[in-house]
């Protein structure tokens, strides 16, 4: 479990995060939802330690991460897996070498044979068992995301962070990536935090959703609750899509069809 307490962050006097407090639960897909420029990615970077918050604290399973000693931060970081928006694969390495890299660096006690087995397992888990020898430039965007996930889970991470995992992907591939993240979260009982502004992801895997608006947390709840939320900014965000507006209209006409729509979207149900 990750606890974020009263996080504030400013850039050149402009407040980007304004006292955000929230909890990311273990074994669930926690979604950070919000429009562009609302501070989702900044909050994520503060949590993983790529940025230092001005005020506030972040706790990983009871261990304070912010302002703690380097050794403690290193220990926590080694339990973190992260899927970046652009995948951030190392250009000079093959797909298999990318997945093996954290094992080489973080688990020197593993033999080369054990590492190869783990790489093969992770690549198979994300459906890329035949792509190990390809270079990142030779694979599609969706495959890169899968490699990113394989690299994140290779050292058996406890916390998985995904920064807009669906950006630049077609809807069908987006759903596959969402399902993969959902499966991995439940399979290994890890704490997953996903930054997104994609309503499809909310419907598919939003077990715990935190809505940010202009640097503040305005709402949190589940995907079943979000459709009936009364926060005006959240409703504006959700119903900015004509597809969701149409679904809501049907919901009102059929009295509750929308909830069924959300339930159908459960990635776990389709596995």
């Amino acid at each position, binding site marked *: 479990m990750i606890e974020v307490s009263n996080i504030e962050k400013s850039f050149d006097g402009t407040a980007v995060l304004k006292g955000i407090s929230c909890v990311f639960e273990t074994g669930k897909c926690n979604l950070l939802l919000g429009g562009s420029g609302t501070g989702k990615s900044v909050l994520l970077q503060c949590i*993983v*330690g*790529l940025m230092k918050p001005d005020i506030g604290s972040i706790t990983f399973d009871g261990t304070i991460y912010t302002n703690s000693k*380097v050794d403690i931060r*290193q220990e926590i*970081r*080694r339990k*973190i897996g*992260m899927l*970046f*928006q*652009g995948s*951030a*694969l*190392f*250009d000079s390495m093959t797909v298999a070498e990318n997945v093996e890299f*954290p094992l*080489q*660096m*973080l688990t*020197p006690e593993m033999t080369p044979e054990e590492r190869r087995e783990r790489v093969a397992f992770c690549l198979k888990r994300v459906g890329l068992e035949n792509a190990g020898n390809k270079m990142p430039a030779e694979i599609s965007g969706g495959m890169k995301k899968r490699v990113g996930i394989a690299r994140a889970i290779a*050292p058996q991470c406890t916390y998985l*962070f995904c920064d807009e995992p669906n950006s630049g992907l077609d809807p069908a591939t987006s759903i596959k990536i969402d399902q993969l993240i959902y499966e991995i979260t439940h399979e290994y009982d890890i704490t997953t935090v996903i930054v997104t502004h994609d309503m499809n992801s909310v419907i598919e895997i939003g077990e715990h959703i935190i809505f940010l608006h202009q640097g503040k947390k305005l709402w949190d709840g589940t995907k079943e609750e979000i459709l009936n939320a009364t926060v005006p900014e959240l409703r504006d965000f959700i119903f900015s899509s004509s597809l969701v507006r149409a679904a809501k209209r049907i919901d009102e006409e059929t009295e509750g069809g929308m909830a069924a729509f959300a339930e159908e979207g459960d990635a776990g149900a389709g596995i």
Partner: protein
Amino acid sequence: MLKTFGTFILFLRGMVTRTESFRVLWNRTMEEAMLIGVDSIVIVSIVSAFIGAVTCVQIAYNLTNPLIPQSTIGYMVREMTILELAPTITSIVLAGKVGSSIAGGLGTMRITEQVSALEVMGINSTSYLVLPRIIAALLMFPLLVIVAMMLSILGGYLAGTLTGVMTSQAYIEGIRTDFIPYNIVFALIKAVVFAFLVSGISAFKGYYTTGGALEVGAASTGAVTNSIIAILLADFALAALLL
């Protein structure tokens, strides 16, 4: 300016604190040594051989007084090559080739979040990415300068003898006259200092790149320009201090 210098010092300090294991550092240094050293041999050889050749021909053109022996040409080629041309020109060439490569490579890694990926894994990115490049440059620049010295003097010999401006015997006699071994030490000290400046400045410019592809290009250009200026300033300072 002062703030940038302070950031540069902190950047160097971060590189040597919490370093990766010796095995990782060794492997990475050898990889970089191949890129910085072996891949630069051709360009360094071509530049140094031609500089030696041109130096010889131009000195011969200017030394028309019959009272000055022909061997003076060989002597002057050797002195100019060892003291100035081989270390400085080679380092300037390497600032263009290696410096832009270091800045461009790190800049691209930065904007594509590869540096962030290392940090999230708990790896000290400056230690992993920058330290091996600097060590490799410190090892390779002096070796390349030695190659440049030899080829430059050889270039002078070939140019002098093939164009007929001097005899083979006079040239060899010239390059053996009044040899001061300290000059070689001085040249190698210069090579090490220039290696640090080129690799350190280029890595600094690349590592702190922000933005997109345009900024990566700007970082490469800035790295080359700043490295060359630093080389010339250090060249003067070293000459004043050590000669």
